[in-house]
């Protein structure tokens, strides 16, 4: 072996002298076709669709799995997918889905009603990841197979947002999962870095923390929107943690699309040749949540004073203009959104007026502002807040916390900080997804750190989620939004735009606001050859 190594070193030396840093190719061309390369910051530790669902994980899950339905487009709409049609009973409690007959798992097994039943049962019984979406309304026993291609869900009560969660419940192949079960773990160990899906891609190279490859399925049962000739041979999701490295890789053409540049990078790279920016209005809201139960911020006048002192223009400047101010707790892209009149904007006179009415008429207090360590924009907003509150003689202590610590602090009234910066992306397009955050049942969750308690709002939210009449619901949601703004449980911030920078030959990019920040639907992408 050593002889071989030494000989090879000698040859390598010769080769080395002739080659020096070959210029990188654009998208990768393999003998099977083009492979699109996506540069992202976040790894995919666990692929199992019923265990985790952060943005990078879900992007890959969506690539290898199918759901009964799928979100597409802007505004997001629910499209039939594995289910070609469905009906609801009068009382809104029974949902029946009819499956397409040609869908196949990657190993050739048909996607049938039993697979659907098993997948939902698995999700509910594991009680992790997506389980919270349905567990209060659906028991595993409530799912039944009517025939090979018909499946029925009987809910515990009427639950209008039911359908809006289904796109995130992916269907796994029971045969494969059961074959790889260890000690009755529902195949959790195996599905961590394997898949048992029917999606447009199957797994290729899987190098945790380095890169994850999805290979296109040639005869995907639903076909390819870009046409068989144009479809890529696969997609590589490459982990690039530093924005600077992402930018360099995109400019050199080592990757075709990146997600994590700084606001200033986007402005700058937009001018580069061959690069296009995807810039879309998202659904992720930013709020500075007050602890409304304890400490100085339990005083509504102080909360109002802070809200009126905030420099809202600077929030937009932090994103270099790629953001828009919230006009309601419910994002614009969501049904039922209204522009709440009189939502605070910077007005120092009013701020001082409210401060005078508060328990701290002369300020002189220091309030903590907690943000997730490493979240650059949240840190910068903290600096804006600090600057904004100086005229009120209120000092701000900016405290970065690790995400788990911040969540732990926010789970109890006693420890919840006076001000916490929170980004929230609703998981569905139904207004309930946001309104329920202000329901008392949400206490303990990170997005409910304000411990907001208004019995009137709670009652309206309960009423709206069980009603199937949209007009009635719309009216309720309008009232809910107005009331929340009046109570000022948080400084309503902005909706940041979702941005990606891509090479201009990358085609088929489809934005949908219901996807998480960074998440892209890989299915319709393709490369247009020069």
């Amino acid at each position: 072996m050593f002889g071989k190594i030494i000989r090879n070193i000698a040859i390598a030396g010769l080769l080395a002298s002739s080659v020096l840093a070959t210029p990188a190719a654009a998208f990768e061309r393999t003998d099977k076709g083009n492979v699109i390369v996506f540069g992202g910051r976040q790894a995919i530790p666990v692929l199992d669709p019923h265990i985790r669902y952060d943005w990078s994980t879900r992007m890959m899950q969506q690539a290898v799995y199918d759901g009964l339905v799928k979100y597409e487009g802007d505004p997001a709409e629910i499209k039939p997918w594995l289910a070609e049609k469905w009906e609801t009973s009068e009382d809104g409690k029974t949902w029946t889905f009819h499956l397409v007959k040609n869908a196949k798992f990657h190993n050739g097994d048909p996607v049938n009603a039993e697979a659907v039943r098993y997948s939902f049962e698995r999700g509910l019984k594991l009680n992790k990841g997506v389980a919270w979406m349905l567990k209060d309304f659906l028991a595993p026993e409530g799912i039944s197979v009517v025939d090979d291609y018909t499946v029925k869900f009987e809910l515990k009560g009427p639950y209008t947002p039911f359908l809006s969660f289904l796109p995130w419940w992916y269907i796994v192949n029971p045969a494969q999962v059961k074959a790889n079960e260890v000690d009755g773990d529902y195949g959790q160990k195996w599905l961590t870095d394997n898949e048992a899906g029917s999606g447009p891609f199957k797994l290729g190279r899987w190098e945790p923390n380095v890169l994850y490859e999805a290979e296109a399925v040639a005869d995907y049962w639903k076909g390819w929107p870009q046409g068989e000739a144009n479809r890529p041979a696969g997609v590589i999701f490459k982990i690039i943690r530093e924005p600077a490295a992402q930018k360099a890789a995109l400019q050199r053409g080592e990757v075709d699309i990146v997600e994590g540049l700084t606001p200033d990078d986007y402005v700058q790279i937009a001018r580069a040749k061959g690069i296009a920016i995807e810039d879309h209005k998202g659904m992720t809201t930013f709020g500075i949540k007050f602890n409304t139960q304890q400490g100085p911020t339990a005083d509504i006048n102080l909360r109002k004073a802070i809200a009126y002192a905030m420099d809202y223009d600077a929030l937009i400047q932090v994103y270099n203009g790629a953001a828009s101010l919230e006009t309601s707790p419910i994002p614009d892209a969501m049904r039922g959104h209204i522009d709440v009149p009189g939502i605070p904007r910077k007005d120092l006179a009013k701020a001082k007026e409210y401060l005078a009415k508060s328990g701290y008429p002369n300020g002189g207090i220091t309030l903590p502002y907690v943000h997730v360590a490493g979240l650059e924009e949240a840190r910068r907003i903290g600096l804006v807040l600090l600057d904004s509150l100086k005229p009120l003689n209120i000092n701000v202590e900016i405290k970065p916390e690790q995400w788990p610590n911040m969540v732990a602090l926010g789970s109890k009234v006693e420890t919840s900080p006076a001000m916490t910066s929170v980004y929230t992306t609703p998981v569905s397009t139904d207004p309930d997804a946001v309104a329920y955050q202000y329901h008392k049942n949400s206490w303990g969750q990170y997005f409910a750190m304000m411990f907001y308690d208004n019995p009137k709002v709670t009652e309206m939210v309960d009423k709206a989620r069980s009603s199937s009449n949209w007009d009635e619901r719309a009216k309720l949601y309008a009232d809910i939004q107005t009331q929340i703004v009046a109570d000022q449980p948080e400084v309503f911030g902005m909706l940041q735009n979702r941005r990606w920078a891509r090479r201009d030959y990358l085609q088929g990019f489809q934005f949908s606001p219901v996807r998480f920040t960074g998440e892209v639907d890989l299915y319709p992408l393709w490369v247009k050859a020069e």
Partner: protein
Amino acid sequence: MTAAPMNTQIDTPAEASRPLTFRERHASQIRQWRLYAHMFRKSFSSMLGLTLVVLFLLLAAFGPLIVPYPEAASGAINMSAKLQPPSSTYWFGTDEMGADIFSRVIIGARTSLWIGVVITGLAAIVGITLGIIAGYRGGWVRAVIMRFTELFLAVPGLALALAIVAALGPGITNCVLALAIVWWPGYVRLVEAKTLSIKEELFIESARSIGAKTPWILWHHILPNCMSPIIVKMSMDMGMAILSAASLGFIGLGAQPPSPEWGSMISVARTYMPDWWWYSLFPGAAIFLTVLGFNLLGDGLRDILDPRSRDR
């Protein structure tokens, strides 16, 4: 042997009627220090180190008074002037919030000085105390202290500090605390070895025989004789402590904004590479020059105070 023990009194002949002047009483020490000063001045690297350290101390003392935009260190923002390249208005350019980087770097010297002094001070106090006790008492006390010390020495400092800060949460106080926790064992080992060798010396024996109490011996005989290597080590450690704190800051566990700390500045600045290069260049240069200064100074001091231990 190291420099002559500093506590030895000089026998002067008769003339008891006239009290000795300070110069006369300390003639030998003065001669000794003159020699040190001469050796020190002769070495270019030592003088460079001294210059850097003095400059650093001056900036730490007067920085906020001399910088053009002192409010830049307390969180004043000016979004219209963000990410400006170096110019006559902003010598080192501006950062992503429009704050003057020159002002922040200069005022950051005070933060760094504080970090260095607290870490080194805490570590030295704990380490020297334990070291002297271990070396002087011996027996099982020594065994326990030294086992414990070796345990800490066996874990790479930065890795352990990282774990501690991650557990306690980011912030400069936690950083300093974590680094002090991993820093003291070095002093124990140094002082213990020194104490062991000194306590066998004749003058300790004689002090004990005339009835000197243990604390008195420790304070008047052992400690002064350990001082040279301790001073050398502390000078070196000032630099290394500042560097380590900056490293934790770089990982994102350092000072809270808007406090100007060099490592944290680079941590943010890194995302603005390469187009806004000045942002990370200047804080990094400040760290480098400061640490270099303390290390060169320590190295120079070692050459004259403790020549035998050099390079060990």
